[in-house]
């Protein structure tokens, strides 16, 4: 039987629980994608309304009004103005919250002006009694010319009513609730006469802002009806006042609030959480707890994943038919996938904390606390979210910079975020620290290695702040700064929302960055296991000849290592490594480290894996756990010229500093390109950060050696 599809757009202010409503309507039947050309998240899902009718629900980004101030908000307007869009809704569901009804209704009246059938959802209705709010629903429905669904997404109340209203959307009135053109009748009359076939409010939106409007020549409208910026803004103000007048008049009759019941929980919590001293203490305590738990809790699953993949790789090697493709699977693809999967615990934990902080309303308080400090360095209080998320992965962090309205502050945030120590640097730091820093305790309880790691995190954060200060001085962008942050009421995070969010974000990481890492590990494996010359193919004979010539008696395993090393030197990757050796020698690296550094430009965590491949670990011993074996091999590496250890203190420090500063992540560069819409900024980032890293590593090595 043919199914009928109703297209529904879910619209609402931020912090009204729009996503909860979406989650309740669709369950797990949802998908997250991107709008073409921009990285705004596009969430859609399906809800079954009746046996043969299904609703396709699009969760549009939260917006305060149809006057957009960010790319996210632009998406909403562009969709609602474009009837030809395949997602153009049959019905708009405007989600509001019972406590902020007045403000939320502003957007509703604008949607009504677009003459799209609209349903009003009043969410968090379970809090009405508590807050002493009473609503006259029939009166409101009549005044607002709509149908209302009282919903509590938390208590799962009213969702069926809402589904029913969506099903019967054709009964809804499409009449606007007020006559907004009366703010300047003359102007709007002229407009109406010139474009008789167009909706007046649509024209007005096109005039006042920068949106694509397909079937109308924007310039034509603009040139005929342009007004000075401040005149337009004055009109917008008039429009807003007019809308509020209407809303106030309506709510005066339709809503009764018993003020005595208004509890002061938010005020009390705010007094503590934004306190001069306690505010910061609590914030740093929370941060500390987050880092501790990310590193403590994720070690167990990470070790487990690490071991499982090593076993799996071995299993594949021994059970599949011998051949090159089997090698590719067991040495290239399986470790490649392992290298992605191993980050899932850390990333999931970090997103868990971040989404709890955001859902609860605490993040806005942090923005409030940090704004003044951050502004000294050319950042915004809102930059704190990307900088914290950057410790997991710069990619989602850079995307979260989107709600910074000021372009300069946003650009600086995007540019400096990659300095924060992301989880991909962690395996590199861990192995090098374990090689060069002794396993000792300071003051009896602080581990020296732990302190070194903390220091590296601080260096990363300090560099981010310092470079934003520099950028602030040198970037000549005079932007009107404006900063308006809503302080939502505190809420206990809903498990379902947090869980879905963590799931989606983790999935995005695994399938986004993961594919790149996987592709690269295939290529790397190929370059490491193929060579252009006969020397590569005949490695075994050449090494054997060499051994015979020198009258050496060696264990078989040692011979194998020698063969592998010889082969590697003459593989494509070895040739590349040798070619770049002159450039990296002053930093204290040999060609093997060089290859690892170069391949790290795909993704930093490749470093350890590359060294593992290069030192041919896992070829002959399968019982030892991988980390230890790599470590032993690295420790045993001797520089053939000086006879010293390759991984000495100077080289180690030089490597650590290089990894702390260099821009070594193609995926991040790709995201920066997308977010800034130009190649200029990612290229600057790559050159400046990596150049700086080179110089610092050079100085460090030359001083310490």
């Amino acid at each position: 039987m043919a199914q009928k599809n109703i297209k529904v757009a879910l619209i609402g202010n931020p912090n009204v629980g729009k996503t909860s409503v979406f989650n309740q309507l669709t369950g797990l039947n949802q998908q997250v994608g991107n709008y073409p050309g921009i990285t705004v998240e596009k969430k859609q899902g399906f809800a079954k309304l009746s046996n043969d009718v299904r609703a396709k629900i699009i969760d549009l980004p939260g917006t305060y009004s149809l006057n957009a101030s960010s790319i996210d908000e632009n998406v909403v307007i562009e969709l609602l103005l474009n009837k030809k869009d395949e997602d153009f809704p049959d019905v708009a569901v405007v989600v509001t919250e019972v406590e902020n009804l007045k403000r939320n209704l502003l957007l509703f009246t604008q949607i009504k002006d677009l003459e799209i059938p609209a349903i009003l959802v009043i969410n968090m209705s379970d809090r009405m009694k508590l807050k002493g709010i009473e609503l006259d629903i029939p009166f409101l429905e009549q005044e607002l010319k709509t149908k209302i669904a009282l919903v509590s997404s938390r208590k799962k109340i009213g969702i069926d009513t809402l589904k029913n209203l969506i099903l019967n959307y054709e009964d809804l009135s499409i009449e606007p609730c007020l006559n907004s053109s009366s703010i300047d009748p003359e102007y709007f009359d002229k407009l109406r006469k010139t474009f008789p076939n167009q909706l007046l409010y649509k024209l007005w939106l096109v005039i006042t802002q920068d949106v694509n409007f397909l079937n109308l020549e924007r310039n034509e409208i603009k040139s005929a009806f342009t007004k000075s910026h401040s005149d337009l803004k004055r009109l917008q103000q008039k429009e807003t006042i007019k809308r509020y007048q209407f809303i106030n008049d309506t709510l005066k009759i339709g809503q009764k609030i018993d003020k005595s019941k208004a509890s002061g929980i938010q005020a009390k919590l705010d007094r503590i959480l934004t306190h001069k001293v306690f505010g910061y203490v609590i914030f740093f305590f929370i941060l500390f707890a987050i880092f501790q738990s990310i590193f403590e809790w994720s070690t167990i699953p990470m070790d487990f994943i690490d071991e499982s993949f090593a076993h799996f790789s071995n299993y594949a090697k021994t059970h599949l038919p011998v051949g090159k493709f089997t090698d590719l699977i067991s040495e290239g693809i399986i470790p490649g996938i392992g290298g992605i999967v191993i980050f899932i615990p850390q990333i999931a934990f970090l997103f868990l904390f971040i989404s709890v902080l955001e859902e609860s309303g605490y993040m806005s308080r942090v923005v409030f606390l940090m704004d003044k400090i951050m502004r000294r360095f050319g950042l915004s209080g809102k930059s704190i979210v990307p900088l914290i998320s950057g410790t997991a992965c710069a990619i989602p962090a850079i995307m979260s910079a989107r709600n910074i309205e000021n372009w300069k502050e946003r650009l600086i945030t995007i540019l400096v975020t990659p300095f924060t120590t992301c989880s991909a640097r962690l395996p590199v730091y861990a192995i090098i620290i374990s090689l060069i820093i002794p396993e000792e305790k300071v003051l009896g309880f602080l581990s020296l290695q732990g302190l070194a790691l903390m220091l590296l995190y601080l260096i990363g954060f300090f560099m981010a702040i310092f470079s934003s200060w520099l950028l602030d001085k040198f970037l000549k962008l005079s932007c009107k700064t404006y900063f308006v942050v809503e302080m939502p009421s505190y809420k206990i995070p809903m498990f379902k929302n947090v869980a879905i969010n963590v799931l989606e974000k983790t999935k995005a990481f695994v399938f986004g960055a993961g594919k790149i890492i996987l592709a690269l590990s295939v290529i790397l494996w190929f370059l490491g296991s193929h060579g252009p010359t006969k020397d590569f193919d005949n490695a075994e004979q050449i090494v054997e000849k060499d051994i015979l010539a020198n009258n050496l008696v060696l264990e078989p395993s040692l011979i194998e290592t020698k063969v592998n090393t010889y082969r590697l030197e003459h593989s494509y990757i070895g040739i590349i490594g040798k070619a770049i050796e002159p450039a990296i020698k002053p930093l204290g690296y040999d060609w093997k480290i060089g290859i690892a550094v170069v391949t790290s430009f795909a993704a930093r965590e490749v470093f350890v894996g590359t060294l593992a491949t290069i030192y041919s670990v896992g070829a002959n011993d399968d019982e030892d756990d991988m980390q230890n074996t790599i470590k032993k091999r690295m420790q045993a590496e001797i520089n053939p010229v000086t006879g010293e250890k390759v991984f000495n203190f100077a080289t180690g420090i030089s490597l650590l500093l290089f990894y702390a500063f260099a821009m070594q992540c193609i995926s991040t560069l790709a995201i920066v390109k997308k977010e800034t819409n130009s190649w200029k900024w990612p290229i600057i980032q790559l050159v400046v950060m990596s150049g700086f890293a080179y110089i610092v590593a050079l100085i460090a090595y030359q001083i310490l050696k």
Partner: protein
Amino acid sequence: MEINLSQLKKGERATIIDFNIEEIPLKLLEMGCLPGNSIELIQIAPLGDPLYYCINDAHVAIRLETAIEISIIKEQI
């Protein structure tokens, strides 16, 4: 007496009279920062900026530079 919003003290209420339209983001107007509405200073950030207000039942933080552009009359208690 007409003063600007930054002169309001913590816990005090006032009525918005007017503002410099050029300097006020539209978003703030849409949140209810309009002439005639009431405004209360709830909290000042540790370094004196930003400021956290309750405007027309909406809880909003804005920077000092924006607050200066809004003129108000204090409510008598």
